[in-house]
């Protein structure tokens, strides 16, 4: 049902083919901005706090792919403020399907294709340059860790947007800001102070999207093992997202008519 809803949106969006390419282009371009930055910096320095160019690109690509997944699977959550504010959530509440999934599939972020394309190219290139020593077990764990990392990112997007139940605005600026918080973790976490590092790895665990998984795959640094906790972080985020919706819906007031 979730898949079908998204599929229907793809078809609807493809009606405007030119627009689709504009979006993919624009999104691809915006994902490259950070890359330009990384390129410009690494043209002048060999490493940032001990992290080399391709190591940083690996983290960056994980964040990008995570973002793409959010756009693919949770884009509708950006409409939550509007749905709550105008009482449009009513129709989802009278349907026998979890509201959180109905909201997430309410819209499809066509930008996902641009984002995912850029992210995948970066990930593959970075892994190819990095000479990771792959064994079957390592590959299997890496797959699990990366998949969990993406779940973390998608859930965090949903959680940020669930704030709409409490904030009651019509636009998701808060969520957009919270999402930007994730951009902090496009760079090695070690550049930040202790407080911020702790914040980004526990309360709002964006560090589990790119940094910790990448550090684990690379075996880089003393805390590389933390990457193995990514599935736990994913479980934590999903739980919070579900609870946020459960409590949020209790506050839901519908609209006057």
């Amino acid at each position, binding site marked *: 049902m979730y898949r079908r809803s998204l599929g*229907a949106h793809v078809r609807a969006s493809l009606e405007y083919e030119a627009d689709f390419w504009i979006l993919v282009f624009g999104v691809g371009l915006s994902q490259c901005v950070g890359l330009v930055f990384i390129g410009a910096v690494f043209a002048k320095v060999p490493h940032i706090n001990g992290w080399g160019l391709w190591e940083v690109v690996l983290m960056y690509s994980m964040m990008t792919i995570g973002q793409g997944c959010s756009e693919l699977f949770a884009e509708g959550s950006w409409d939550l403020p509007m749905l709550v504010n105008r*009482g449009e959530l009513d129709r989802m*509440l009278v*349907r026998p399907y979890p509201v959180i999934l109905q909201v997430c599939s309410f819209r499809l972020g066509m930008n996902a294709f641009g984002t995912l394309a850029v992210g995948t190219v970066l990930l593959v290139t970075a892994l190819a340059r990095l000479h990771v020593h792959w064994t079957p077990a390592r590959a299997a764990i890496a797959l699990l860790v990366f998949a969990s990392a993406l779940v973390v990112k998608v859930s965090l997007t949903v959680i940020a947007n669930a704030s709409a139940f409490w904030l009651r605005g019509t636009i998701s600026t808060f969520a957009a800001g919270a999402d930007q918080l994730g951009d902090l973790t496009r760079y090695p976490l070690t550049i930040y102070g202790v407080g911020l590092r702790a914040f980004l790895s526990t309360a709002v665990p964006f560090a589990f999207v790119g940094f910790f998984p990448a550090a684990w795959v690379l075996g880089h640094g003393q805390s590389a093992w933390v990457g193995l906790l990514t599935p736990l972080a994913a479980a934590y985020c999903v739980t919070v997202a579900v609870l946020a919706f459960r409590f949020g819906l209790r506050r*839901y*007031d*519908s609209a006057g008519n």
Partner: protein
Amino acid sequence: MDEPLIRARALTKTFRRPDKGPGLAGSARHLITRKYTEHHAIDGIDLDVAAGEAVAYVGRNGAGKSTTVKLLTGILVPSSGEVRVAGVVPHQDRIANARNIGVVFGQRTQLWWDLPVRETFTLLRDMYRIPPERYRATLARLTEVLDLGPLLPVTGRKLSLGQRMRADLAAALLHEPPIVYLDEPTIGLDIEVKDRVREFLRDLVANGTTVLLTTHDLGDIEDVCRRIVIVDGGRIIHDGPLAAVRDELARERSMHVQPAVPVDLAAIRAALPGTEVSGEPGEFSIRFDRFAYSAGQVAAAVMGLAEIRDFRIDEPGIEDVVRRVYEGGLVESPTGAPA
């Protein structure tokens, strides 16, 4: 023991409205003081609806009709009181409840805005897990009675109001729910579509579906419902058979008259004892009991006093019903909770 299909006890819903002064200063002050006014949209409602019943739920604007429907459907969580619908507490077990009900909000579409109607239906089929056979049969039937054929390939946002309403009705009934809530399903429709919708609802009730119908149009309920519940200020002020209300209402008519030259209203009052005359000498209304006078008698009496330029006879509306209830004009039913 037979529990009614829908059962509400002392149901209340209180909205909090931010108490903001006007302008910037008001906003700023609100930021600090955070004052709210409590607004009791629903204020202690007891309602039982048996399986197969068709209930008209009427009242003035803002009486709390839509809010009641939202409480019964699990959209809103009640501030206090109990609800059970088919043994399920709607806001607690929302998904189980959703399978039992079909909902139409006349003022708001439930169709997917950017999808063709047919896609919306297939989505709903999957959401309600309707078996393919059943789905085909139901869709065929609904397509026929609601004349949906030409609408199926059209995108939701491109439908006209009447087309949208028909598609919405079908969308709410695809899974053949035993309970159907209709909140103003004929709002803004022209006579022809209205008739079609009313006929459709009549069939629905005849087939044993439990229906709760909210409307401002007394015409909607006459054919469809046998019981009428009247709400005002969030409370039920009357609950009883529709026939009684109809008889009572059928008594009263209003004739609006524009005489060619102003007449003395006192003379008209004298000519028609027992009626209520209001207005100006140049344009006035006469309220009369249909069993005491016929419209012809009233018109004749007026014509005896002045030449009539124009006149019109009004049937009573919801507002009159509510007024009559307050005047004690309606017989209280045993379950009715007087305000």
